[in-house]
């Protein structure tokens, strides 16, 4: 078991609980997609795992060790990378410099070179457009650069928060395809996806979140064909499927 959450409760500041007891486990090499309505706590869950938010209760075990409340930079070093929602590249830096920023905390030059080579193999765009300012790329290209930046560290667990948000369908498919490739190469992925159909068909395992808990989980395609899921989350009447 790579990652295990037991009864995790978390929220912001003195506000009410957003996560209300999340139980979730990810095997090494898993590709899990979280779907659910707005406000269910999907992004909050990712933030809690990557250390941006301290859990109020419950345990988060990464490789058997409790990491609840550990600093995000240390967790990044441990191998948990988080690609947040929206645009997060350094717009005026070149594409290559953006990718280098992903290796900033690495001291071992050999590891950096290795990570850069691997990232460039998966995302040829970071070599092709290396001298271009990242802000001049299209949304889909920027997302690829951001994921490449996270991959330089060669993380074991990659958290992706709605990477296809705001992308036109074809650019979104490119990003999804890249995620599949990363997973095949052994990276464990936890994906939050607004487009439930696309997310569930890409991932092996799906989890449905609602009101701060995991309500339902199962194989991705199984959930896709579940009449109740279809009705509630895929915006489709059960009969018309």
């Amino acid at each position, binding site marked *: 078991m790579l990652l295990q959450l037991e009864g995790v409760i978390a929220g912001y500041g003195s506000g009410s609980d957003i996560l209300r007891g999340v139980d979730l486990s990810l095997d090494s090499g898993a590709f899990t997609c979280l779907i659910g309505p707005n406000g269910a706590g999907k992004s909050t869950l990712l933030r809690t795992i990557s250390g941006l938010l301290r859990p109020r209760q419950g345990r988060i075990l990464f490789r058997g060790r409790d990491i609840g409340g550990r600093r*995000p*930079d240390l967790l*990044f070093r441990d191998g948990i990378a988080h690609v947040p929602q929206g645009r*997060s590249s*350094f*717009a*005026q*830096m070149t594409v290559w*410099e953006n990718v*280098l*920023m*992903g290796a*900033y*905390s690495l001291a071992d030059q050999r590891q950096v070179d290795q990570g850069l080579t691997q990232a460039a193999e998966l995302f040829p765009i970071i070599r092709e457009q290396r001298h271009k300012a990242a802000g*001049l790329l*299209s949304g*889909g*290209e920027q997302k690829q650069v951001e994921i490449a930046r996270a991959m330089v560290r060669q993380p074991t667990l990659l958290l992706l928060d709605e990477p296809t948000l705001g992308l036109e369908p*074809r*650019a979104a*498919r*490119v990003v999804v*395809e890249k995620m599949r490739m990363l997973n095949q190469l052994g990276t464990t992925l936890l994906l939050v996806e607004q487009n439930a159909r696309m997310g569930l068909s890409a991932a092996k395992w799906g989890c449905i979140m609602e009101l701060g808990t995991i309500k339902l989980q199962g194989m991705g395609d199984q959930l896709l064909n579940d009449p109740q899921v279809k009705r509630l989350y895929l915006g489709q009447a059960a009969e018309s499927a």
Partner: protein
Amino acid sequence: MRIDRRWRRGWPWAGLVLFLLVPLVQPEGFYLDLLMFTFMYAAMSVGWDIMGGYAGYVSLGHVGFFGLGSYAAALLLVHLGLPVFLTAPLVGVMASILGAGLGFISLRTRGPAFVIVTLTFTYVAQLLMLDLKSVTGGSKGLFLPLLDLPANLVIVPFYYAMLALLVIAVLVSVAIRRSKFGLGLIAIREDEGKAEASGVNTSLYKILAFAISVWFAGTAGALHAQYLNYVDPDLAFELIITLNLIIMSLFGSRGIVWGPVLGAFIIYPLSAYLIFLLPSRLAGQVHLVALGIVLVLVVMFLPDGLIRSYQAWRRKGPIDRRPVEARASIVEAAG
């Protein structure tokens, strides 16, 4: 393309050789003086840009370090008899240590606190030199012993010293730009929070950048004191010097090694000519107004500076056509 690149690498060296030869032809006079001051401003502006351009923190305090450098060098010469050409780099180091101290106070936070602290620092330094009468002579200033040189050669050592300072400034700026440190500074300018999240030690980097940045102001101040053979609080702490550095950097392009150099090489000769052309009664004021107008025009019409604007203009053609092709290839790859 290859010729283009070789030419780009070559022209700074060609310029350097040319400037090295100038005093052999013309060892005195207006033009040598003009070039010397251009080098001085260019070097300080490149230094300013390490903080203001790379890290994005605008310092209004560089003249404070320039003035203190002038005083430090003058006092070392008057009291201990140490020649300025030897002490200047060490005076620069003193400025850096002071800069690190000031940075330690003002750079642990983000945002405009730094601007205000550096501006205040200039005035505090000036008042201090004015009021420490027993040491600095107060408003009467300090006279430095003249260099033992024939009058027609007296500019030459300053000319070469300022040229050396400029060369060092450019080399340091290039080295920083290519280093991980420089990448971290630019990340700070782009988004300090994100930079920190990526593992950049933002406070340390800002303090370090500021210390390096003011070394050039301190060293130039030391040389300048010996050049005038005189220091007083008004001359040494003229706020216009800081403004000049900023305008030169903005005009040429902030955050690009050659930006401040280009800015200085255009603005300093122009303003020197303006002072030269105008009747001396008016020159001071008109020159300030002109500088103000240049600042307004740059901010309004050339906010990215000459070099960046030129690069954008050159890229424009190909860029307008590019995205269509690029997108097409992505679509094919996606199937």
